[in-house]
């Protein structure tokens, strides 16, 4: 059975009618006990399994997924990967993720199609330009490269943007992070799954966690739809459903769940070079390799677990796109979806002990979980393997909500929610 993906094996399998490719991962029945159990078979959970094998040599691991792999927010985002944040703690976190993404296709032997086409955040007034310079300087001080563009440079870089005389918010310039870009969402989940499975991890789909087994104040396992599974340490990476899952463990979280919508248009010839965010309109857009425009914006303002969006936000996002690029105003949409995102008070994630011994969290990523998949997995794996924080995850412990040391990227980076 052929497992390694290479030009040679493609040729060899081509000559044999492609009959020798094995399954990318097994579908085992769960054992009654593992060293480590991870709840959530999305990007973060699967990445955790991969890094437990690769960084810590722990292979007696199960990933429990109530649906199918990557069927939650991993399949419901706009695939943007970037690290244009303000605070040093965030820069360390998100830039590590971008750097891990840079080597990911090779590491996983799976093409995650990370395309570093750049991300442009436009500025629409002179005060905006001053704030852009401040943001840029903060990024550079934190070791993240970016460039400040003036209006002419923005026009040369993204000529499809609206530079018309009647634009309500004329473009004065922008910040360009060249290393940012987009990836292929399914490939990220599947690549991590395949690699973890090859390392011996059991990936168990259609297995829902119903309750946590607590003995002497410590979480020692879970009851699932496929029976009882015990573990020395348990990690949860379930995004928008973190509050609902943690309630079963008696743990309450500082999280509100909201729907975040995204849209894909009919395929077009290349019209965009990068990911463009125009803050006054609350809309951002990139163009996929198939040619579809991938469009996103702010949150629905109604707390929700229903994986579909509401009309006011659709109207705001799409009218914003028509103002950003009037030439796209007649483009038809093909698909539209919403994911349930876990929003914390400071728009930064929660990584660390849950409050119940033996149970660890990787959640609260809100609208930006996809870009953080490798680093989320790396840090949760570190916590599960050692029981201690990695130096990058320590500031993101949930105790910051008690100490008051918030990392308020919602305000600092102008995240649109």
């Amino acid at each position, binding site marked *: 059975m052929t497992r390694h993906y290479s030009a040679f094996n493609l040729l060899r399998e081509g000559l044999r009618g492609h009959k020798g490719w094995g399954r990318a991962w097994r579908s085992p029945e769960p054992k009654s006990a593992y060293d480590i159990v991870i709840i959530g078979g999305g990007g973060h959970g699967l990445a955790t399994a991969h890094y437990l094998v690769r960084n810590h040599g722990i292979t007696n691991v199960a990933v429990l997924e109530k649906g199918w792999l990557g069927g939650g927010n991993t399949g419901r985002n706009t695939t943007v990967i970037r690290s244009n944040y303000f605070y040093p703690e965030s820069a360390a976190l998100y830039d590590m993720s971008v750097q891990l993404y840079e080597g990911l296709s090779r590491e996983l032997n799976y093409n995650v199609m990370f395309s570093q086409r750049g991300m442009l955040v436009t500025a629409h007034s002179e005060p905006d330009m001053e704030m852009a310079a401040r943001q840029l300087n903060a990024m550079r001080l934190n070791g993240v490269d970016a460039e400040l563009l003036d209006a002419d440079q923005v026009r040369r870089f993204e000529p499809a943007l609206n530079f018309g005389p009647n634009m309500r918010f004329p473009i004065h310039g922008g910040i360009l992070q060249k290393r940012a870009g987009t990836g292929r969402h399914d490939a990220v989940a599947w690549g991590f799954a395949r690699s973890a499975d090859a390392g011996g991890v059991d990936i168990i789909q259609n297995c829902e966690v119903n309750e946590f087994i607590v003995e002497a104040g410590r979480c020692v396992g879970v009851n699932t739809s496929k029976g009882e599974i015990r573990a020395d340490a348990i990690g949860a990476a379930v995004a928008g459903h973190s509050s609902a899952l943690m309630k079963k463990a008696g743990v309450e979280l*500082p*999280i509100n769940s909201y729907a975040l919508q995204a849209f894909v248009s009919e395929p077009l010839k290349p019209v965009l070079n990068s990911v463009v965010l125009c803050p006054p309109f609350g809309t951002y857009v990139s163009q996929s390799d198939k040619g579809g425009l991938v469009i996103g914006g702010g949150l629905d*303002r109604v707390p929700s677990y229903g994986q579909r969006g*509401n009309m006011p936000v659709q109207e705001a996002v799409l009218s914003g796109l028509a103002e950003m690029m009037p030439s796209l105003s007649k483009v038809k949409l093909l698909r539209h979806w919403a994911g349930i995102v876990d929003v914390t008070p400071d728009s930064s994630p929660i990584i660390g002990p849950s409050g119940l011994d033996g149970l660890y969290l990787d959640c609260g990523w809100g609208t930006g979980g996809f870009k953080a998949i490798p680093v989320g997995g790396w840090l949760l794996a570190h916590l599960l393997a050692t029981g201690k924080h990695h130096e990058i995850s320590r500031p993101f412990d949930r105790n910051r909500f008690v100490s008051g040391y918030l990392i308020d990227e919602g305000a600092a980076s102008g995240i649109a929610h």
Partner: protein
Amino acid sequence: MQIFTCPSCGARDEREFHFSGELGKVRPNTTGEVNEEEWATYLHTQGNELGAVREVWMHMTCAELFVMERDSVTMEVLSTTPLRKDVS
């Protein structure tokens, strides 16, 4: 657009409404000592229930705060009742 019902103004477009918070949070008594855990819980911890929820909403055009019972999965509105005691 979804239609929400303001207890004062009746059925209106959802864009006129603002989610203010979950119902039932009690502010710690700040005339005495409040420890950090208690204050953090009051400020940040959310029920964030899946299914039936009871929330405080504002109808921004009349500024009336009221209680809305919803289903957070189906988005169905179950009831809206005024918070003010003197409103019938």
